[in-house]
C-alpha cells in the first residue's frame, strides 16, 4: 500500500460503527446512569486522551452542529485544540468557544459555568466509568453490585472519610446517584460542578473509550451527590473572586506567579472569564 492515499469516512468512523454507537447511546438514555458496554473503536488519538468522547461526538455530529471542545474548562488547552481540529478536519464542522452558541460540547473535567439549555448535548471524556472500581476491582463483581443496587461499600467509604477526617474527602469524580437507581461516576469533574447535572435541561453523554462503556443523564433527571443526613454533600467553594474578571461562585485555576509560590486565582472556564471581562469593559465609559 506504500504511497497510496488513504481516505476516511466523514466523521472518521464508518457508518456501521456510528450505528452501533447510536444504539448504545439510546440504551444509555433509556436507563439513566447505567453503563452500557460498547465495542469501542480505536480513534487517531491515544487511549486516555478522550477516545470515548470522540466516538460519542463522532456518532452525533452533523452538518448543522456547532462544536465546542474544552479541557480543564479552557478552549485553548492543547488537547482541546487537537480534538477540535480533528473534527474540523474529518467532519468539516463549525466550531465555537462560546458555550451558548454550541450544540455539542465535548469536555474533559469541567461543566461550563454558563447554564446549559435543552438543545445542547454535553459529551464527557471518561477515564474510569466505574464508581466502585477502587473499592472492588473486578468487573464481574461490580456488575453484580449495580444489578442488585448494592452500594453499601460506597457509603462505608464515605463514612470512613468522615470517621478519619470529620468530613467526606472526595473532591472530584464525586459519586452521584442517578434517577434514584444507578450509582454513577460524573467523570473527574470537581465536586463543584456536580450540582449542575441535577435536573439539567441538557442531555449529558459519557464516553469511556478504553473501558468501553457509554452512559447518560437525560434532560431533567435527578442527579444526587451522595451524602448523609448529618453530613450532607458539600461542593468545594472559592472565597476569592477571579483576578481577571472578578467573578465569584465559579471554579478557579490557581496560577503560580513567582518563584516564591505566590499565586492568583482565575476562572477555570475561559469562555465565561472572557465574556465577563468584556462585559465589564463595555460598561466602563471610554
Amino acid at each position, binding site marked *: 500500500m506504500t504511497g497510496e492515499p488513504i481516505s476516511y469516512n466523514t466523521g472518521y468512523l464508518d457508518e456501521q*460503527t456510528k450505528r452501533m454507537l447510536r444504539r448504545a447511546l439510546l440504551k444509555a438514555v433509556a436507563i439513566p446512569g447505567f453503563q452500557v458496554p460498547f465495542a469501542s473503536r480505536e480513534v487517531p488519538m*491515544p487511549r486516555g486522551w478522550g477516545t470515548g468522547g470522540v466516538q460519542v461526538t463522532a456518532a452525533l455530529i452533523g452538518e448543522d452542529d456547532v462544536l465546542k471542545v474544552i479541557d480543564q474548562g479552557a478552549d485553548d488547552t492543547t488537547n482541546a485544540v487537537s480534538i477540535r481540529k480533528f473534527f474540523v478536519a474529518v467532519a468539516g464542522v463549525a466550531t465555537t468557544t462560546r458555550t451558548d452558541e454550541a450544540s455539542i460540547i465535548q469536555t474533559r473535567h*469541567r461543566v461550563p459555568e454558563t447554564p446549559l439549555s435543552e438543545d445542547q448535548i454535553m459529551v464527557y471524556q471518561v477515564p474510569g466509568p466505574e464508581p466502585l472500581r477502587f473499592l472492588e476491582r473486578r468487573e464481574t463483581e461490580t456488575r453484580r453490585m449495580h444489578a442488585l443496587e448494592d452500594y453499601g461499600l460506597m457509603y462505608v467509604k464515605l463514612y470512613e472519610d468522615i470517621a478519619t477526617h470529620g468530613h467526606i474527602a472526595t473532591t472530584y469524580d464525586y459519586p452521584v446517584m442517578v434517577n434514584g437507581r444507578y450509582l454513577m461516576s460524573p467523570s473527574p469533574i*470537581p465536586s463543584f460542578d456536580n450540582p449542575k447535572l441535577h435536573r439539567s435541561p441538557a442531555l449529558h453523554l459519557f464516553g469511556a473509550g478504553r473501558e468501553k462503556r457509554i452512559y447518560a443523564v437525560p434532560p431533567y433527571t435527578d442527579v444526587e451527590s451522595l451524602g448523609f443526613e448529618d453530613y450532607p454533600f458539600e461542593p468545594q467553594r472559592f472565597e476569592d473572586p477571579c483576578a481577571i474578571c472578578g467573578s465569584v461562585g465559579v471554579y478557579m485555576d490557581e496560577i503560580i506567579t513567582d518563584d516564591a509560590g505566590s499565586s492568583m486565582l482565575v476562572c*477555570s472556564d475561559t469562555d465565561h472569564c472572557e465574556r465577563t471581562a468584556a462585559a465589564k469593559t463595555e460598561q466602563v465609559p471610554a
Partner: protein
Amino acid sequence: MYVAVKGGEKAIANAHALLAKEGRGDSHLPPIDPSWAVGQLAVLVARVMNEGSLYDPELAARAILQAQGDALEAITLVRSFRTTLPRFGYTVPVDTAALPPQRRISATFKDLPGGQQLGATFDYTHRLFTERDTDGPQASPNGADGADAPAMPRVSDLLGHDALVQPARPEHFTDPEPPDLTREPIVFPMERAGRLQALARGDEGFLLSLAYSTQRGYGSTHPFAGEIRVGEVELEFEPPELGFAVPLGRVEVTECQMINQFKGNAATPAQFTRGYGLAFGRAERKAMAMSTVDRALRADEFGERRVAPAQDEEFVISHSDNVEATGFVEHLKLPHYVDFQAELGLVRQLRAEYQQRQELEGREEIDEEVLV
C-alpha cells in the same frame, strides 16, 4: 509558568514541525523507504502487524517510519486505520498442519515425522557484532526455503492419537462463530476464542513477563514447547453469494503449541493439556508467550486454583492491550489542574484541621497541668 500548557494551536503546529525535523535525521542522507523496512526490519514489521491486528507489511513498515521507530506509536497508527476498514467475515479455518514450514521444531521429541527443521532463527547464533554484509547472503542451502519440505503433522496431533493430550476440540464440538472483540465489547468471563484474539493483539512484552512469571512459580503450568512452526498459509474466504471458497492470498505465521502436564482429577485421567499461540510473521517469542498464558488462563477448565496474575482473565485481558495501556499511562501528561486544584483545597483543609487539633490538644495538656 504552568499556563504555558494553554499554548493553543501555534504551539501544537510548532511542536509537530519540530517532531518532523527530528524524525528526518541527517538531511544529507536519503530517507528510509518503507519497502526496505519490510524486508530488513521484518521482525519489527511482524510485531506491528500482530499488535496492530492487521496483516499488511507495507503499511506496517510505513507506520514504523512515520512513528520514527516507536513500535507502540506505529501499532496505534495501524489500529486507527484498521478500525475504519469494512469487515467481510471470517476466512475458512487455516490448516497449519498443511503449511510447508520454513521452520519447525519440537522440544518434546528428538525425531518425529517430518523431522526437525531449524529454519531462519536467531537461536544458536553468537550475539556478537558482525561486519555488515552489504552484498546480501549467499545462495541459500537446498530446501531451506521450505518449498519442498515433506508434510509435517502437528506434534500435538501425534500425541492426540493416544489420548495423551487433551483433544484440540471437545467432544460434540459444533464450531460456533467466534466473537470478534473489535466489534463486540468484551464481557467477562470470556470464551477461549475471544481470549485468544485478545492475546494475539496483546503486548509482546507484557505476555512475555506473564509467561515468565508462570515459570517462576506464579501459576505454574509446567510447559513444554510441543511444537513451534513458521511458514506461509493460504487464506480462503467463502463469500455467501458464491457458496465456495476462494483463495485470498498467503500470510506468514508462527504457531506454538505448548504441552502442559496435568495430573488429572476425579473426573479426568492424567494427560497433557494445551496452550495455543499464533502470530503473524516471524514472531516466535510472542507465540510462545501467548501459548503459555493461554494455558495458564484455562485454570478453571481443569479445576486448578487461580492464585497468580497469569491465571486471572480479568487482570490479563484488561491490561494486555498496549494501545490502551500506553495511552492511559501517557495521558497523565495532559493537564489535570482542575482535579489537582480540588485536591490542593482538600490537603490545605486537612492540614488546617490537623493544626487546629494539635493546638487544641496542647491547650488541653496545659489545662491538665494547671489542674494538677
